[in-house]
């Protein structure tokens, strides 16, 4: 079946009234749980699993997939308005989205995020259809050494974003990596820094960390400050709409973000986190005025949002073409199929074309629904900011607690949020970047396991990082990036010294 025939066939599947209803249900619920801080796909799957037993497998998959990418749209809302990211991807969005909201430009930030998300998703679908075969080969060609080299490049490239002093940025990345060490060591089974708590054996809950560092810390810091400012004036429709200058700043960051997101999303593992951080780092690097970043730059929202939405789409590449779920949540969604006797695998495209093409077309329909659903909601979200903060923040705290609890039903995690929130407040006061801590926390364990795995597989030969072509490419790129940064720093130093004379 050619791609065109497939797409036509897919329309036949996805436009069935019942399937359409489940698609709408999925994306609506996805937006909703995305807006609720911390509530993630896990809670949605528990909620929807019983329903999936009674509907066709393609409707079930389309609905669950709708939740998966719909949550990406919603996730930006809490990040921009309240600095409450539920995932590391949306943590990147807080860097410029939240300052924009504080400047009274929340509407523009939300609009930018929606449009970029839409661009990222739609182009992601094109990439999925056109390059699925190539991307799936890339996914199996990547070995442990390649992953390790790639993650190290990502870490180096992104390790100074959002930090006023590079040293403080590096310290946060390393601190995050140390926190990532907590739990059972994958290679030896040894318990590291678990202090006898079984709840820590799987590590610190990522959502608890993100919520504590950003949300709770922000609440503590704002209880007094927010009251002093007068409640923002009602925003007129005109102020909500982006200016011509804003619109000009969206397309290219969105395209670059899409490119990054499409590629990294297809690699099993951390695609979307890495791509949104890299998209942000890239925008800052190519910008003629990097000093605007962190203070409300439109590009800082557009790039990462396009990246993580494109990644959410191409994340289905290994799942659909290889039958290998790219992340644990995807694996759980597939569980719903297995119970229908559908075994996702390399042959699914041939054996069950209605699943593949129906899903691909539903991505397009779902994203259109999301855009239609979300654009009118912008006004409502923005008006939420007019509620005095004293009414808002106790509710935020409760929602954060239940969001964190929803991940794995552990009260321990709520207690952890309290502790992390306190630490996050102190770190924020001393102006250490929580986003970099989160980056280190996510990438650290992946670098460690892949590096150690690569050394085990190569029987201890470090040359593997230069012998494997992919790893070699990343290693050279990392070295080049470090050299360029040092050279730039030296140039700045010299020119400053000359100015001093």
């Amino acid at each position: 079946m050619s791609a065109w025939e497939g797409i036509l066939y897919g329309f036949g599947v996805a436009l069935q009234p019942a399937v359409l209803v489940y698609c709408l249900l999925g994306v609506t619920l996805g937006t909703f749980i995305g807006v609720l801080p911390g509530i993630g796909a896990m809670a949605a799957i528990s909620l929807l699993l019983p329903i999936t037993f009674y509907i066709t497998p393609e409707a079930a998959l389309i609905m669950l997939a709708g939740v998966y990418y719909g949550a990406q749209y919603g996730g930006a809302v809490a990040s921009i308005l309240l600095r409450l990211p539920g995932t590391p991807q949306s943590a990147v969005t807080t860097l410029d989205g939240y300052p924009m909201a504080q400047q009274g430009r929340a509407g523009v930030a939300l609009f930018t995020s929606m449009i970029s998300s839409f661009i990222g998703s739609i182009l992601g679908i094109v990439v999925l259809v056109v390059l699925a075969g190539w991307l799936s080969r890339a996914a199996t060609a990547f070995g442990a050494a390649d992953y390790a080299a790639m993650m190290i490049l990502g870490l180096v490239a992104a390790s100074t974003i959002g930090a006023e002093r590079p040293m403080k940025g590096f310290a946060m990345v390393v601190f995050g990596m140390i926190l990532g060490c907590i739990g059972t060591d994958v290679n030896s089974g040894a318990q590291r820094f678990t202090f006898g708590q079984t709840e820590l054996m799987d590590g610190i809950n990522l959502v608890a960390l993100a919520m504590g560092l950003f949300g709770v810390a922000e609440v503590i810091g704002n209880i007094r400050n927010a009251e002093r400012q007068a409640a923002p004036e009602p925003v007129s429709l005109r102020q909500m709409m982006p200016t011509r200058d804003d619109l000009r700043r969206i397309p290219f960051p969105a395209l670059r973000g899409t490119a990054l997101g499409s590629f990294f999303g297809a690699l099993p593992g951390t695609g979307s986190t890495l791509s949104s951080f890299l998209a942000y780092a890239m925008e800052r690097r190519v910008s003629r005025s990097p000093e605007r970043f962190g203070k409300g730059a439109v590009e800082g929202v557009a790039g990462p949002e396009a990246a993580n939405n494109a990644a959410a789409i191409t994340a289905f590449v290994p799942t659909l073409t290889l039958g290998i779920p790219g992340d644990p949540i995807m694996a759980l969604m597939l569980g719903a199929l297995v119970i229908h006797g559908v075994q996702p695998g390399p042959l699914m495209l041939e054996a069950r074309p209605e699943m593949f093409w129906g899903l691909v077309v539903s991505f397009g329909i779902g994203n259109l629904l999301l855009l239609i659903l979300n654009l009118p909601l912008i006004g409502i979200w923005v008006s939420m900011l007019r509620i005095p903060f004293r009414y808002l923040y106790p509710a935020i705290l409760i929602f954060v607690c239940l969001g964190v609890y929803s991940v794995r039903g552990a009260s321990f995690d709520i207690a952890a949020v309290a502790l992390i929130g306190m630490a996050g407040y102190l770190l924020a006061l001393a102006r250490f970047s929580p986003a970099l801590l989160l980056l280190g926390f996510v990438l650290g364990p992946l670098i460690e396991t892949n590096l150690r795995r690569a050394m085990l597989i190569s029987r201890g030969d470090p040359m593997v990082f230069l012998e494997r072509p992919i790893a070699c490419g990343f290693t050279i790129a990392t070295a080049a990036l470090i050299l360029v940064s040092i050279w730039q720093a030296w140039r700045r130093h010299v020119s400053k010294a000359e100015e001093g004379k």
Partner: protein
Amino acid sequence: MNRDWADICGGAVLALLGLGVAINAGLRLDFGTLRAMGPGFFPTVLGAMLALLGAGVAVPAWRRGAKPVTIRWGDAAAVIAAILIFGLGMSRLGVVLACFLAVLIASLPAPHPGWRWRLVLACAVTVLTYIVFILGLRMSLPVWPRLP
């Protein structure tokens, strides 16, 4: 003297933490070899790095002035207490009571006098929580207090 105390303290705490992690991991976890890195390899190396970076943040800050920061311990305590009451009390008190208490405690530091709005807020948030999480998301949570 008006030094950059935020960086001095922040850097020092991170340095000590890094040192502690490195020593703890070095003593208790197997370091391994380059071929077969043990569970202690990364924590030890990362801890040492954090110790150096922390010192790198703290030492230059000694010769630098900065606006002093004030830590609002009261606000922090109320927020932390609210979260802990909710998190640890939920299984016994049930979501409704735990939520009501947590909101009351969280609202204490808000600089707006009066009790009535706090009680109304606690009721409102509790109702909202019940609607969203129990009715909407059907999370499996104890709703009412469990009598002994």
